[in-house]
Structure formats: C-alpha cells, structure tokens
C-alpha cells in the first residue's frame, strides 16, 4: 500500500518536472488559456497523489477488522471499528477542505483582492485604470470622427461649387468653340474663366489642407491600439485568475457536497441589443447586408 502511495507521489513529481517548464513558456508567451489548462492538469496529478489513498488504506484495514469482529459476534467493538472508519473519512474530508481553502486563498491573493487593504486599493485602481483607459479611447475616436466629419462637411460644398461652376463655364466655352458668342459675351467669359482659375487654385489648396488634416486625424489608431492592447492583457489575467477561482470553488462544492440547483443562468435578453458581432462565422449571426436581405425576403419582405 505504501509503495502504491509512493508511486502516485512519484507520478506527480514527474508531471511537475515535465509541466513546469511548459507552464513557464506559456506564461512568458502570454498563452494564458494554455497555461490555465496546464495548471488544471497539474492539479489533477496532485490530487491523484494526495487524494484518498490514505483513507482507502484505513478503509481496507478497518473493513477487514470489521468483518472479523462481526464474524466473531463482537458487535460492540464492531461498532467502534465503524466509528473509526467514519472518523477516518471525516478526517480526509477536513484535510481536503483545508487544502482547497488554502488553494482558494492563494487564488484570491493572486486575484489582487486579498484582505490586505493596500492590495485591494491597488486592484481596484487597476480596474479603474482600465476603465479610464477605455474612456480615453472613446474620447480619442470621437474627437477624430468629429474632426473628420467637420472637414468633410466643409470640403463637400467647396468641391460641389467648383463642379457646378466648371459645368457652367464649359457650356459657355462650347458656345465659343461653336462661334456662337457675341463680342460682349466673349469679354465677360474671358474674365469669368480668369476668375475661375483663381477660384480653383485657392479652393483646391483649402481642400488639400482639409484632406491632409483628415489624414492627421487618424493618428488616434496608434494610441488607442496600445491602450486596448494593455486592457486586453489585464482582462486575460483576470480571466485566468477567475478560471482558477471557479475551479477551486467547484472542488470545494464537490468535496463538501454542496448541490447547485439546476436552474440555468438567465439568458441575456437579445432584444436589449448585444452590440456588434465580432465572429461573423457564428451560426446565428448574419455576415453582411446580403444575408440580412435574404433572411428578410425569406420572411416575405
């Protein structure tokens, strides 16, 4: 029995040796999902090592004793043996709950919400910081959108004006080409064309400047990209800690026999709106306007 126990401990030892460098690489490369999976594997290996083996050894021994005593008709001492088995089981349970409580505690510590008030402030400020950063992204993108819209709204009538003036002059010019123009009309056209060149020069410069400003207004992408990358990193960290926490909590529930009622979580109210769908390939999502049109026409639209 002791040998078997040693063997299991050895298995865990080997698993630890093998997986520790893997885990390190995964964390260094920010592959948090894989790292969490590795941690779970290790956790299972460790459980197999420390698990019920001690209890089962006691159980086997006591069961044999119990059998003997009942055979011998020693009811009272058989009851004692039963009590001892019960105690061994409770001890195992307490040990396991204790172990999981410690694991939970360390998971919570890693989650930055330890009872230490300084740490809690730090964790909160990290979240506040993330929110502030996202707020900053909204500000920058909104500013860029408004700047661009302002400049476009200023440029469009200018270009429209040039187009209509050119069209008008072209009609007059055609009359000149067709020799259908009086001398007075020609003199007037002469100066109109001259004025139009000035107009084109100055207004093209305006539009060019606006286009250049629109170009510069796109500089937010670099800044918002960096900010979003940092926030994404934080979210991934929080997720990894949460997965750990949920895993530990489920273990405690299992060992203490807490039964969850089977009510599924409330489905999000789709009619409230979900925002843009990032995964266009998902089954219940339309990929583009054509899909929408097909769906609507299948509904008789």
């Amino acid at each position, binding site marked *: 029995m002791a040998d078997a126990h040693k063997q299991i401990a050895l298995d865990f030892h080997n698993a630890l040796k093998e997986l520790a460098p893997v885990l390190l690489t995964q964390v260094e490369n920010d592959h948090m999902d894989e790292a969490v999976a590795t941690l779970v594997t290790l956790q299972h290996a460790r459980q197999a090592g420390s698990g019920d083996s001690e209890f089962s050894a006691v159980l086997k021994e006591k069961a044999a004793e119990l059998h003997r005593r009942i055979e011998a008709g020693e009811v009272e001492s058989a009851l004692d043996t039963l009590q001892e088995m019960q105690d061994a089981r409770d001890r195992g349970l307490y040990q396991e709950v204790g172990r999981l409580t410690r694991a939970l505690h360390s998971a919570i510590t890693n989650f930055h919400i330890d009872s230490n008030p300084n740490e809690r402030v730090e964790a909160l400020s990290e979240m506040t910081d993330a929110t502030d950063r996202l707020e900053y992204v909204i500000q920058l993108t909104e500013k860029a959108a*408004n700047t661009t819209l302002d400049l476009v*709204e200023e440029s469009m009538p200018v270009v429209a004006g040039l187009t209509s003036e050119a069209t008008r002059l072209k009609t007059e010019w055609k009359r000149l080409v067709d020799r259908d123009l009086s001398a007075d009309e020609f003199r007037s056209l002469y100066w109109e064309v001259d004025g139009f060149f000035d107009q084109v020069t100055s207004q093209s410069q305006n539009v060019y400047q606006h286009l250049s400003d629109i170009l510069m207004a796109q500089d937010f992408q670099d800044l918002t990209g960096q900010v979003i990358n940092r926030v994404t990193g934080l979210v991934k960290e929080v997720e990894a800690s949460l997965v750990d926490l949920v895993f530990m909590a489920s273990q405690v529930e299992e060992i203490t026999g807490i039964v969850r009622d089977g009510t599924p979580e409330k489905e999000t109210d789709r*009619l409230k*709106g*979900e925002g843009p769908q990032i995964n266009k390939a998902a089954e*219940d*999502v*339309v990929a583009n306007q054509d899909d*929408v049109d097909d769906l609507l026409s299948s509904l008789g639209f």
Partner: protein
Amino acid sequence: MNKNMKILVVDDFSTMRRIVKNLLRDLGFSNTHEADDGNTAWPMLQSGDFDFVVTDWNMPGMTGIDLLKKIRADERLKGTPVLMVTAEAKRDQIVAAAQAGVNGYVVKPFTAAALKEKIEKIFERVDG
C-alpha cells in the same frame, strides 16, 4: 418620393447621427432631425409630423426595437416607415425586428449605396 419629408435620426452616438444625416443630405433629404435614444425620440414623434424614422437598435434608455413597437402600437404613428440601422446582427434579432414591423434593416458597418437602396425600396412600397 418627397425630398422634403421630415426624417428623425435616432442614434446614441452623435458621429453616427452626423454620418446618417450627411448620407441623407447626399440623397437629397435635408429636413432631418436628431434624437439620442427612444425616450428622446418619442415626444418628438408625438408632437412633430415625421414622415420617416431611421433608428439604431442598441441605445441607453429606450432601445430602437422598443421604439419601433411603440410606434406600431400608436394609433396615429403606426403607419410611419421605420428603417433600422444597427450593428445588431443575430438572426433572431432581425426576425424580431421584422415581426415588430420594421420596414428595412441595414447592418453596420454599411455603405451609402445600401442605405440609399433600402430607403428607395421603403418608399416604393409606401408610395406604390
């Protein structure tokens, strides 16, 4: 199609309202007004004689789908054409909008051509 018709653009993002208004102006509609959600839009719809509503779905306060349902339930407003311009792209959402009586559905990001086509289609039906 009456180019002078009064249009209400409902979206919680001011930039999106500006884009839609600009596109509408390019299509010849300049009688446009703005509201930032269903709650703001509702009193405007009740007091003004709007001919057409372009609304987003996901907005704080009253959502676009609730606004649509409210319009369809109102004796005086129920005939007002409503075009949904939204990022909501789940099939059951589109079905829900259709059941609520939407006249057209444009998913964001959209093109000027898509918006034009839907608006023309809506008024072909309404006028025809």
